[in-house]
């Protein structure tokens, strides 16, 4: 990895984003709107709104960054820029980490705005600090980026890339404990839920909601999600071939 090339790549991806005003607007406005809907849905009852809002603060960045990254990387593959980049001094990790860095930064801004809305505007209260929520949200965004980079290798068109959302994202949302408590699930579903990274991210957010101090369970959850990010990036790197047929 070459830091100069890594930062140039992250800068290039952010510049592409900057030219796309509509995407920026969507990245900023959508979480605010969704948080507001959630708030009015529960008619401002904080005992119901708070736990769900907390979970959603972690899930939104995951979904959005997964989509954005899988399409961006697919474009890189189909437009020929990837093939061309691989004939330059750029290493595979420079590109993958460049995406992680650029979209990680975008996700930090997005999570900051979403948390500010939830805490200041809608009166969300958690026992733990909001900075822990932002930390987990950004980690989830990176998980979305890493899985998006990986999945783009298995899609030939943007239509196909979008189809990975129901496969990769929705089962994780269904089984993360949001709809049915994990303890109440059938044994095999509980086992499936346990190997899904989003389960641990949601678990960590619940810890922030319940405890004023960062608990060891929280750090374990953060560690698991971070490990999954690294694993997905390693797999994505393996799918990035310099030579293709």
């Amino acid at each position, binding site marked *: 990895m070459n830091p100069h090339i890594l930062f140039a790549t992250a*800068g290039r991806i952010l510049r592409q984003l900057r030219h796309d005003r509509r995407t920026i607007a969507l990245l900023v406005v959508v979480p605010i709107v969704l948080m507001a809907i959630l708030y009015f849905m529960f008619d401002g009852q904080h005992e119901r709104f708070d736990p769900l809002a907390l979970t959603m603060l972690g899930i939104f960045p995951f979904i959005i960054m997964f989509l954005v990254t899988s399409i961006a990387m697919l474009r890189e593959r189909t437009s020929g820029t990837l*093939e*061309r*980049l*691989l*004939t330059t*001094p750029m290493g595979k990790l420079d590109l993958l980490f460049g995406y992680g860095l650029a979209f990680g930064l975008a996700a930090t801004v997005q999570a900051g705005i979403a948390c500010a809305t939830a805490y200041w505007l809608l009166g969300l209260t958690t026992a733990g600090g909001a900075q822990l929520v932002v930390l987990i949200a950004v980690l989830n965004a990176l998980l979305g980026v890493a899985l998006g980079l990986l999945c783009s290798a298995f899609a030939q068109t943007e239509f196909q890339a979008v189809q990975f959302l129901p496969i990769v994202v929705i089962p994780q949302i269904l089984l993360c404990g949001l709809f049915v408590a994990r303890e109440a699930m059938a044994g095999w579903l509980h086992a499936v839920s346990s190997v899904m990274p989003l389960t641990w991210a949601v678990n960590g957010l619940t810890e922030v909601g319940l405890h004023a101090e960062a608990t060891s369970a929280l750090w374990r959850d953060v560690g698991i999600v971070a490990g999954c990010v690294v694993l997905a990036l390693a797999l994505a790197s393996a799918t990035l071939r*310099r030579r293709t*047929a």
Partner: protein
Amino acid sequence: MTSFKPPHQHSAAVVVENLTVQRGGKPVLNDLNFTIGAGSITGLLGPSGSGKTTLIRAIVGVQTIQSGSVTVLGHPAGAPPLRRLLGYVTQDPSVYLDLSVRENVRYFAALYGLGADAADAAIGDVGLAESADQLTGDLSGGQSSRVSLACAQVGKPTILVLDEPTVGQDPLLREELWTRFRAAADGGTTVIVSSHVMDEANRCDRLLLIRQGSLIADGSPAAILQEAGTTSMDQAFLNLVRRGAAAEATAASPAHRPPNPTPSADRTRR
């Protein structure tokens, strides 16, 4: 490392030996052998689907090959040291349409460890200085392929590989591009250009004529015209194809001869 090398290898920029490439079980390149000297313009000519792009991809090291070898500047194609020495212009302009011209070229400059000065110079070289701040996606097809060329030339490559760079360019720009390729070659750069426009062949020092994955002629434009007994490159290509087809037909046993009397010549006329 041995101290002895045959003398001709010192000046060889590209050595292709027994190169065979298959795609989906079908042969795309059949046992190609040739050497390209440094500091010259070599044209890869042939109809669409003849294997030009596959050969170019093999030279830049992104093509999976079944057998044989491609050696570029003494290294296996695609080896890390080559990535600083080679500029590659793909057939479609592989640049970021959602970035300005300047942002595109500066990014590629940064990959070679170069700064904004080098990028601005490369933009000036392809005549896009006045459009530097325009979004690449807003440019015409010809302009965006010049952005692609600037991105390839910004690193001052020792070997410049271009896949159909003149497609979609008007005659004036084509003239300008060929002048630029000639200047690069005079400066010692090895230029490899593919084209299906036979008229452009006269601009090259040497031609490799490819048809259905095989070399059907190799030589200077003058030598090829003489061999084919004509003065137009289009006609030369047709003559050589027909001669090859006739030789094949004589070699094949009558039982295996296809029903169409002149299948190969028909195919090239399409």
